[in-house]
């Protein structure tokens, strides 16, 4: 609706009757023009709506692309975890096979040329010798000597919960 200037629309408004004494103190009133509201044209609105729709669609596409990319990464990580778990088990088997007593015996006798001792002589220390030996080794802490070696088996309780099968 078009805005009509207030000057044109001056309409005689019935004034309330006032006392003559107050008529002279009437403030200087004037009609103030209503601030003009700028309205967008239909074309601009259309451009904005279409642009907005495209922006939303583009955002959705970007979001979906990121989602797909992350899912691919997740799949890749899953596959990698499975692969590493299998690798861990393979290595564990390999270590166990290398530690097998029969293999060690074979290596000792065939590769290293070791032979079983012809006879074993056992020395029984006298009590005094045992005392001095014990005194000499007092500096060794039992906790030091009993420390577990740093091989794979020591980590087994920590590793096992994470070895669940995965696709």
């Amino acid at each position, binding site marked *: 609706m078009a805005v009509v200037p207030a000057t044109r629309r001056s309409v005689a408004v019935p004034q309330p009757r006032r006392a003559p004494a107050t008529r002279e103190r009437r403030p200087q009133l004037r009609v103030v023009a209503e601030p003009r509201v700028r309205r967008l044209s239909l074309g601009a609105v259309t451009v904005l709506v279409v642009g907005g729709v495209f922006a939303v669609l583009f955002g959705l596409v970007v979001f979906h692309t990121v*989602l797909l990319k992350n899912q691919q990464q997740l799949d890749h990580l899953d596959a990698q975890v499975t692969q590493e778990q299998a690798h861990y088990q393979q290595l564990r088997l390999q*270590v*166990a096979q290398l*530690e097998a*007593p029969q293999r060690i015996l074979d290596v000792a006798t065939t590769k290293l040329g070791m032979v079983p001792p012809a006879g074993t002589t056992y020395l029984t220390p006298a009590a005094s010798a045992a005392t001095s030996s014990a005194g000499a080794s007092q500096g060794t802490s039992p906790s030091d*000597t009993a420390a577990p070696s740093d091989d794979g088996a020591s980590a087994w309780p920590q590793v096992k919960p994470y070895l669940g*099968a995965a696709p």
Partner: protein
Amino acid sequence: MTTTTTRPPRPAPNRRKIAPAPSRSVPARSRRPVRPSGGHPRTGVRTRNRVVGVLAFVVLLFAIVVGRMAQLQLFDRQRYTALGASQRVRPVVLPAERGSLFDRNGADLALSVPQHTVWADPRLVSDPQREADALAPVLSVDRDVLLRALTTPNKQFVYLARQVDDTTTQKVKDLKLDGVELLDESKRFNPSGDLARSVLGSVNIDNVGRAGLEQQYDGTMTGTPGQLVLEQDPNGRTIAEGEHHLTPAQPGDDLVLTVDTAMQFETERALSDQIVKMGAKGGMAIVSNPKTGEILAIANMDRPNGTGTPVASTNNRALTTVFEPGSASKVITMAAALEEGVVPPDATLTVPDHLKVADATFTDHDPHPTETMSLTDILANSSNIGTIMLGQKLGAERIDSYQRKFGFGQTTALNFPNESAGLMLPLKSWSGTSIGTIPIGQGVAVTATQMLDAFNVIANGGVYVDPKLVLATVGKDGTRHPTPPSSSHRVVSTQTAAEVRDMMEQVVISGTGTQAAIDGYTVAGKTGTARKPQPNGGYQDAAGNYHYVTTFAGFVPAEDPQLSAIVVLDEPTATIFASGASAPVFSRIASYALRRFHIPPPGITLAPTVPAPTHPNPAGATQANDVTGTVPPTTSTTVPPKSTTTSTTTPPKSKKKPGG
């Protein structure tokens, strides 16, 4: 000149009445000229009909579409939903990892490792001949077998090769054959080969335990399979916002055994060497901790044809097969006689060379005149007659009762698959000669484990301790759950046990078991040489020959037993006596065990020195190599422990005998 006729403009159809323009002073909104209304009435009807027709057609099309949609969405909804889901939703079974078997120090004895299984969908195989030709050398499977599998009618799944290694898997992948796929499947491995084979047992191709501990603890070691339901596109990629439900697989529990790998290996090796040396058919050996009942090694070796190198038996004969213990059983008779007070410990008996019992005449191994023997003499020299005389004093009921109290005639707490309870005659079935045979270990059959448990009673001061093979289980979260300590019950008094133990020391010092001695240590033990029953029911084979089973069981150090062991040889031929056949193996095994487990000679207390290399325990135990846990790392020497019980047994006569 061309005459052009122009048709008058057709008036616009008078579709509706045009309202008269409002009488306003403002100009009309549209400047378009108002078309005159009206027109040919027939033309308007035709047009209307066309429009109605088109509309009807469109409505009909829509009705069809809506109808079809209703059919799909309302009536066949479930069918099509399932059809769609089957194309994109893929349930994946997550196999549960079977628990591992560890030795007492955390060394792997059996474990499962992921492998691949090659399978085929015959419907998708394009060229079976070519694929069979390509796969046969890779899978090492006969080509015709593969061809049959690849052409199997009406099947969507056939195995081609199960649990193949990674190299083979890669070769199959490289072939890129139609309809040939791979499947994840784990395979059971025993990294130490046949070590402790009879104890560990085995699993079948489907990883189900079928023997040994694998069978006994199948339920514990078999986990719970999980499932992953996810949506995938045709290329196998996961649909990001699709369905995704994960039920994780629960791996099975691990078993930590009481067995020590090194001890087991040495026991098998020593036993094998002696089997070959003695020309025996096979043998059994067990090493245990008498205080806890823990079995440290259990070896079963066979020579299937009686020749060649012994191989580890698949049958845990130490628990499943019985033999007549012979003189080793005299320990029980002696303990019963002392416990019941039928003879005092310092008693002497007048022992003849032979004794008639019912219709049978029993003799000692070596002829001797009637002589006076102490109880120690009787045991140390393994006198049949002296033991039978004790048996006669005891009576059948008490002999039977004590043998059962010592564990004969019942399965052990191990509850091992196919474990034998042994064979004991019911009292009412005893014949006249039973009072002569049973006290000396004939006419009764036991397993090697039962016999060792009986010796452990003496080692433990008269207390029977159940044997034990599983030290702990390790749960799916890695938590170690130790098994409860073995239950125990008293069989004879401490006094009686000490008296018998002293007698058994004399067996090794000056009796039939001298070859079981270990330098620096005191060994208590007993030999046993028993005739072996033959399939025909008697003790002689078709050719009239006797066959023997030799036994030596004992413990060390005698003053404070930390280790006990039994060695049984089946039909040794180089010598038929336990003193020469079984006792030396005991000495070798026990010597190794003493070093292995850091057990000092009597009177010496170990100083804290660097321990032998050991595996950390799977659940974090720091020093699992100490089998007893009773050797404190003190820095002092102690006075040699002496028996706390006063023994009144008399020293034996120095008369070494070859037999048992």
